[in-house]
């Protein structure tokens, strides 16, 4: 297993390689590489300062020169919720497991909103930071990673509105809430996994930028957001669960509102997300060698 460059000598504390055994200097060796590359975990950890700054930059810039600022983080899922409530809840009478349709859909729209905005962000992150990629070295993974984390802010704000709705409809706060971080983590893994694939491909084929919004539109309907997953026939359950977002949305709704919990779909989702993440990192690491030449 080889890496783009190896810090051969051991750094003596500090988060950058500084003094070491080799004439007081750390050695960076530059080589062409073949085959599979490992994840430079050490390097990413050493660059956590930079990761922090990248996240901070995304947050600072996201709502600059907008009137509503972070209000958009609330408004977007809120408007979707109203539209869905009128059409699916009101006109089409989609069942909502005995809950008010508004809160039923909103509890799913918030995590979905994170997924779709982070996926869009991550998949465009490398191309969007082409100026950096071609001018300075740092572990490339930091860019999609930072993007994914930065989008959590919007998610957090929107989540508060979920609680407001729960309070509004006088629904109980449940013990299942404690499992929320687990579903959040699973969602981040899934987002990063799929996002890394798309980000890496996007460097070479900008088709991705066109496909992603369309893909998300279809994906929305393949996920139990406007309807409960119980509407899907048991024959299709296994196929349906291959969509890792199914169990994640089910989990969020269960934790927040106490609807039926994810069953087997949770394990399928976990497996799928990990497969996406592992393969996504693999693809990403392979492409990063020539990324700067192509982007």
């Amino acid at each position, binding site marked *: 297993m080889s890496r783009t460059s190896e810090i051969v000598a051991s750094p003596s504390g500090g988060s950058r390689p500084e003094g070491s055994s080799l004439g007081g200097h750390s050695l960076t*060796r530059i080589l062409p590489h073949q*085959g599979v590359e490992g994840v430079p975990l050490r390097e990413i950890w050493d660059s956590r300062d930079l990761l922090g*700054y990248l996240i901070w930059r995304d947050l600072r*810039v996201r709502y600059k020169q907008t009137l509503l600022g972070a209000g958009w983080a609330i408004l977007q899922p809120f408007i979707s919720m109203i539209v869905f409530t009128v059409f699916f809840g009101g006109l089409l009478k989609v069942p909502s497991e005995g809950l008010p349709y508004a809160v039923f859909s909103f509890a799913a729209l918030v995590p979905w909103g994170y997924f779709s905005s982070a996926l869009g962000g991550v998949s465009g992150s490398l191309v969007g930071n082409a100026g*950096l990629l071609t001018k300075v070295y740092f572990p490339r993974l930091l860019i999609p990673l930072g993007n994914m984390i930065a989008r959590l802010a919007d998610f957090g704000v929107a989540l508060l509105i979920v609680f407001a709705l729960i309070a509004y409809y006088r629904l109980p706060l449940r013990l299942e809430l404690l499992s929320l971080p687990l579903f959040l983590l699973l969602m981040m893994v899934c987002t990063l996994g799929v996002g890394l694939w798309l980000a890496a491909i996007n460097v070479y084929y900008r*088709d991705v930028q066109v496909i992603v919004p369309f893909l998300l539109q279809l994906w929305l309907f393949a996920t139990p957001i406007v309807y409960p997953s119980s509407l899907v026939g048991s024959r299709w359950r296994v196929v349906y669960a291959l969509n890792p977002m199914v169990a994640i949305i089910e989990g969020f709704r269960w934790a927040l509102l106490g609807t039926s919990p994810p069953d087997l779909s949770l394990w399928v989702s976990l497996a799928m997300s990990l497969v996406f993440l592992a393969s996504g990192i693999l693809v990403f690491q392979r492409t990063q060698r020539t990324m700067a030449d192509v982007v």
Partner: protein
Amino acid sequence: MGDTAISVRGLGKRYRIRYGPPPDRTLRGRLSSLISGEGRKSRPDQRQPEEYLWAIQDMSFEVSAGEVVGIIGRNGVGKSTLLKILARITEPTTGEADLYGRVSALLEVGTGFHGELTGRENIFLSGAILGMQRSEVIRRFDEIVAFSELEKFLDVPVKRYSSGMYVRLGFAVAAHLNPDILLVDEVLAVGDLAFQRRCLGRMSDVAQEGRTVLFVSHQMTSIRRLCSSTMWFDGGRIRAVGPTGEVVARYESESLGAAGPTTSEGPRGYQARYLSWRLKGGGTQDPHVISTLDPVAFELELDVGQKVQAGYGGFELFDLNGQLIWSGSTHDEERGDLQLSPGRYLFEFHLPNLPLRPAAYRLHASLYEADGHRLLDDWWAMPELIVATSPQSHPQDDWQGVLNLPFQFRVVPCEGPSAASPSPRDSPG
């Protein structure tokens, strides 16, 4: 010195400039190749072969710790590619390189700046991206701001900065990096003259602090001032490497003096002709390179085939733009014309010094028969004269005069009050 800072062995970088036949280009083909890692295998059934370009090829060199090395060459000869490989922005295709110590690359001014963020925020962001610790930025923040002279605009988004302000802030951050090895690509060629001079001064400081620097530039004066030795790249390879003065002058000579040399007429039936020239006291091994401001002498070897009754010769020094710099003649009131019987002669011109700006110069020598002003030989002496002294004058190429005269400068306070004080000079009486 002894310690090696950079060691490059057989480094090469190949770019694909034309892709193979369509099957290789489909998304599906790429995807499978991404995973299997076999995308780069050539296919036997190619109708149109893939076309490659070696941006750099088979490059090997070593740089000692604390050395400041210039890299020169025309556009597209691999200078930036080398820096990008050493900065780990892109991978080499062949070979390997070792870098000892912390490496910073300065390939543009304002790396990582975001237009929406303020100057203050960008100092932190850019610092982090260039590899500074947060604590380091905080510690040097005031210095950075002072260097940029942008105290008043720190809280303005940089998208509202003028391009000059942007560059100043960018360089200010970069100038306070603290690497062992610094890779710099043509970033001093921006900003106004005053700022350029400050950048250059800062770079000299960096160089004197014992850092190892690889410095790519098209500003030959900057290279001369900063770099002890220089590499000349041509076609992706190292064409020449050596003391800066010599390498730079050879490069300038080739790039400016495109017109080829004209040699003297063939050996058939000549009356007299120049054979060669050399410089004595130039301070270098090379008889065509001068590196001192001490006395020098030009020697021209003349071969006389048939007797010259009353000859006189001219000797001129031109710069590469064709401007006459100096000329000397064999004629002298006392000596009169030269009578030369067949044989070989040495013409010597002694000069107290030759204070020319460092560059390449061309020599022209002629010989006439006074009778009828008949031209016997007309020779553009090649190779050129290379002046490789260190520049004494203004740091910018644009302000380099013809002469490279050593000078002293001092400020002497004068007696009496200032003209701006209550007794103005234009007051009557």
